[in-house]
């Protein structure tokens, strides 16, 4: 899976931002270090970015920078789990996770139970894949278990969730990014979800 890249120069031209702004955002950790990809070209070393990621990120920064300070923005984009918590009833009330998921995976918990951000994140990811119609309920159960077992091991480092199926047998994996992954023939990649992206989306629901 070759990533689509955009050079620094093209990025600045396309978005109409200056070098100073780009470096400033990098200093404020609005743009993660691992997106700066150095490659040699015929003009010497050049910096490239993963195209889709950087374009959406720049759009978000440009849209939000009038309302929020750069430091507040940095918190939003940080891959670290924030200390947000939410009660089960609020979770349903604010429609963050669909009732079906709660019913199936959290029916044992009392309404007043408080979930930490990582618990919420797991529900959110499961819900996301279920809603996309890509995953069955049974698989959801296994996904939840995979996330519980292995996601904390990444300890804030960015990672992707891989969901593959071969001959009807599905499996999940978590891998740290950036990484290239190649499959044997017959394997179908059903979904690759960036956990950092999910964290960002979920954080966005708090405002």
């Amino acid at each position: 899976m070759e990533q689509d890249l955009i050079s620094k120069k093209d990025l600045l031209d396309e978005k109409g931002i200056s070098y100073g702004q780009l470096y400033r955002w990098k200093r404020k950790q609005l743009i993660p270090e691992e997106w700066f990809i150095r490659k040699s070209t015929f003009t010497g070393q050049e910096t490239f970015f993963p195209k889709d990621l950087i374009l959406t990120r720049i759009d978000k920064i440009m849209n939000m920078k009038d309302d929020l300070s750069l430091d507040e923005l940095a918190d939003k984009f940080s891959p670290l789990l924030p200390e947000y918590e939410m009660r089960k009833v609020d979770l349903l009330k604010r429609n963050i996770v669909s009732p079906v998921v709660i019913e199936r995976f959290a029916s044992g918990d009392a309404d007043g139970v408080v979930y930490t951000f990582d618990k919420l994140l797991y529900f959110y990811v499961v819900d996301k894949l279920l809603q996309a119609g890509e995953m069955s309920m049974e698989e959801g159960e296994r996904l939840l278990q995979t996330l519980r077992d292995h996601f904390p091991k990444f300890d804030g480092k960015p990672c992707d969730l891989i969901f593959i199926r071969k001959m009807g047998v599905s499996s999940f994996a978590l891998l740290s990014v950036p990484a290239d992954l190649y499959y044997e023939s017959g394997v179908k990649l059903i979904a690759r979800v960036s956990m950092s992206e999910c964290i960002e989306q979920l954080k966005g629901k708090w405002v």
Partner: protein
Amino acid sequence: METFNGPDLLINGVSKAGGGEYGKVKIDGVGTVEGSVASVTFDANGITKVHGDLITGELDSDGIFRVDGLLTARKMKIDGKMKVKGSLKADYCSANGILNIGGDCEIEQFDMHGAFEVQGLLNAGRMELKLQGRGKAREIGVESIQVRQASRSVWGKLWSWMLPKFSPELQVTVIEGDDIDLEYTEADIVRGNRVLIGKGCSIGLIEYRTELKVHPGAKIGKEVKTGG
């Protein structure tokens, strides 16, 4: 950080101490800290070594200072020599002497008087350089940069004649920024919005957006105006 009530670390003379969290750290003489340190302030006079990372609010160093890991400070004032093996991060840094950074450098406001070497990317908000020796970085990315040569004494001239390493100029492959004002700089590529090239410069390629002024004594390979 301000209200931290931890122990202070005081070294007078020659001594070693363990790492950890401290309120104030003050080292006069030859002090070595084994391990990483976090402190509210860090005041060092003499020879100081930190075998680990250093995170502090305010760093004031006179003499020789060495950090084996990363250095993060809100405000730092360096007189003398400093060597950091990892990356350096600071809001404000004023340095007088020789600075040697093994990784990247991220500083909001950077005033440098003397000589420096940054192995990685030097990323600063505002940067003012007065070179007395050689300045070297792989790449510089800034909002604004000003490079000047400090006035040179007869002895300084003699030194740089004998040892070219001491000749006060900036060497870098790429400089990118909004406001760029250079003198005595050797660069492959300079990309910016407003670019001023002063005397003693040798630049391979300049890409500018709004304004370019070149001193007649500067050597320029190619000039390109980009954008609308």
